[in-house]
């Protein structure tokens, strides 16, 4: 106990130093991912639904029940309320534990300090991109036998994202994929059909662009989480089959030239060019006719831009066929958690067939269990494209420390767009960055 306090103090001190050394004034919250399932963009949360920090009160804890804390992030009140409904059901279903959802605006810092301090939350969100980092530090508990109901029911690619050394560590809570979302009226007016290939996408974007009116075909942010989908469509990869960095390839150059070419030609714009914080806002303001975004767009458009008529199509196929990205989050349980038994019960209640059905039937997120697919598609037929993406998606996950590499990609795309670098030099830099990180 004493040791724990010591660690907690030490971690706190470092955190304080790290923050206070960085100049006076309080620092605000980091922008949390603006969606239910993960959305690894840099979209500032101010432009999407306002983030809430106040967790909704769940049922009053009964006297003797052990408290369980679920640490995560949040994008909207709606999402908090829905998740709290599910949490409440768990609390009513048994008397031993009282769980509460605790969305943190500074999720990364909160989780890291709690883990280092030796007093981790009982359950926490784990983003697929960060999973390798947590595994490298060996902080996740191995689930006991039967803790996860019917693990083979999860989509293989999503299950693989949270599997290491043959162990499936944590069940994915839900997932999102990328698709092409287009403005019906604008496409009809220009006489354009939803594009299905790269060439068609380029032609459509050109036709839809009217820069004199400040309207463009496509919003494309300088964002690795979008470009990597094009990379896979071109037949490229980030890592090869042996886990080695393999991005400096002709296929990657094709993808990078195509992506930045759309921007250079002026058929696509970064959202800031049309006074928007992220692609979705540009689309909602009808400054662009198409965006490459995920199912988080649906609740966003419904609440912020209810009058925009849109439809959803698969991402256009590249030279080597279809591909999209899958972003997912799992419920992780820490190795040194104080109530492991309760944690696993809680996780199972959230992700077993019944729990996941209730959560995903609320319409914010897509089920990660194959057995729920048909029922969900019936309920939300307009979102079928996103769910179908699971079949040809690649997980948003590479190796430990890869935020440095995705940063390098973001930076490279911006530099090319500003005419300050070439695709060859950027791919070389990214390749080198990946090798350095993997060698570390």
């Amino acid at each position, binding site marked *: 106990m004493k040791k724990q306090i010591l*660690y907690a103090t*030490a*971690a706190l*001190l*470092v955190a*304080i*130093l*790290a*923050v206070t*050394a*960085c*100049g006076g*004034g*309080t*620092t*605000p919250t*980091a*922008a949390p991912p603006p969606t239910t399932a993960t959305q690894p963009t*840099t979209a500032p949360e*101010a432009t999407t639904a306002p983030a809430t920090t106040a967790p909704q009160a769940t049922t009053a804890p009964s006297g003797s029940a052990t408290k369980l804390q679920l640490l995560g992030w949040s994008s909207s009140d709606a999402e908090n309320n829905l998740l709290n409904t599910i949490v409440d059901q768990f609390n009513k279903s048994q008397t031993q534990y009282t769980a509460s959802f605790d969305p943190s605006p500074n999720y*990364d*810092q909160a989780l*890291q300090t709690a*883990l*280092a*301090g*030796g007093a981790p939350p009982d359950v926490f969100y784990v983003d697929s991109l960060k999973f390798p*980092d*947590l595994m*490298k*530090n*060996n*902080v996740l508990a191995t689930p006991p036998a039967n803790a996860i109901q019917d693990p083979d029911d999860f989509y293989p690619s999503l299950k693989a994202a949270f599997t290491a050394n043959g162990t499936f560590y944590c069940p994915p809570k839900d997932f999102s994929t990328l698709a092409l979302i287009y403005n019906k009226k604008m496409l009809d007016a220009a006489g354009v059909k939803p594009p299905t290939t790269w060439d068609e996408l380029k032609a459509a974007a050109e036709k839809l662009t009217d820069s004199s009116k400040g309207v463009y075909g496509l919003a494309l942010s*300088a964002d690795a989480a979008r470009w990597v989908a094009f990379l896979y469509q071109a037949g490229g990869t980030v890592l090869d089959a042996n886990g080695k960095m393999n991005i400096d390839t002709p296929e990657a150059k094709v993808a990078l030239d195509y992506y930045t070419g759309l921007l250079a030609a002026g058929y696509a714009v*970064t959202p*800031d*060019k*049309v*006074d928007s914080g992220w692609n979705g806002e540009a689309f909602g303001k009808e400054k662009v006719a198409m965006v490459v975004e995920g199912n988080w767009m649906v609740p966003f458009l419904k609440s912020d831009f209810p009058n925009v008529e849109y439809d959803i199509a698969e991402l256009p196929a590249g030279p080597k066929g279809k591909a999209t990205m899958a972003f997912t989050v799992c419920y992780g349980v820490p190795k040194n958690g104080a109530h492991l038994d309760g944690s696993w019960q809680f996780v199972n209640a959230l992700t077993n067939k019944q729990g996941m059905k209730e959560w995903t039937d609320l319409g914010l997120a897509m089920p990660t269990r194959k057995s729920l697919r048909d029922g969900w598609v019936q309920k939300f037929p307009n979102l079928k494209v996103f769910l179908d993406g699971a079949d040809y998606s690649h997980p948003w996950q590479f190796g430990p*420390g890869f*935020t*440095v590499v995705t*940063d*390098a990609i*973001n*930076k*490279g795309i*911006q*530099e090319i767009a*500003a*005419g*300050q*670098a070439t695709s060859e030099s950027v791919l070389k*830099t990214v390749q*080198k*960055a990946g090798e*350095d*990180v993997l060698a570390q």
Partner: protein
Amino acid sequence: MATTNIAGQRRQELIAGYSFVAPALIILLVFLFIPMFFTLWMSFRDWSGITPPAESGAVGLQWYERLLVLDNVRRTDFFTAFKNTFYYALGVVPTQTVLALLLAVIANQQLLRFKGFFRTTFYFPSITSSVAIGLIFLWIYQSGGILNQVIKAVNPAYRNISWMNDPTGIIHNTLAVFGLTLRTAPAWLTETNVLGLTLWQWLSGPSVTMTALMMLVIWTTAGTMMLVFLAALQDIPRPLYEAASVDGATSVQQFFSITVPMLRPTIFFVVTLGLIGTFQVFDQMFVMTSGGPAGTTTSLAYLIYRAGFNDSQMGLASAISVLLFLIIFTATLIQRRIFSDRAVA
């Protein structure tokens, strides 16, 4: 008898003295010295920030080697951040010092009416939350924002600058006017690699976005510095000016021959504070740009934050912190030398 009495009194005074400073001392110890040495220690370890620190392994000088010697992504990131911070300090410190001095002289005029109003106005940005100011400036700097609209009203030929998303360096842009770009620059500029960046990249100057942040910061901090100058101005004895006017000195002459020399210690203080503050700049990057576009507003302090909390490399973050301390320490020493030399001359 008398000696023991004095000794006893001494001891009592000692105890009283130490107990008076104890609260401050303890706070300093807990919140300053312990974290400082903890950071130094951590910079020699591979602590991720996820597991308890005691479980981390010793890595010796590895982080420093990666940051300073080996050709790898950490060194490139570090020197990119160093370059960004250096240009930032180079632009902000002199400008804010001169501006603060001018504002102080204006607010100190004997004949000025509504003196209180001006002082408050000049000082106001400094006491407003940097986050609030950051968010408001995000609006102003939008490509359809007020700033662009005002410029456009004055000059219809103006093409909107996206202030918050323009990674081009202002020295690069100036060179481009004379036809020197990445494509036309000689090979020795674009090929020579110094510490992970090409000479061409070193020469970029602050990016347009960084310049926008610099303008904002100058506007907010000049008020604080003005207050310091104002206090010092009021300490300059009036007779000096009276004697000077009797001798026929103009007010410009008085300013450069009396005011500025008398303010030398204050200028040193203001420049030192400015240097430290600019090298540690963090808030604006965190709130407004997240270090972008293309990493051109990633300051050293913001890089520390990214390394520690996004990248889960507290050891690396600690090593950068130590280097940042050394940079600030050196900069302050150099600047002290410059000022004291002038004082002798």
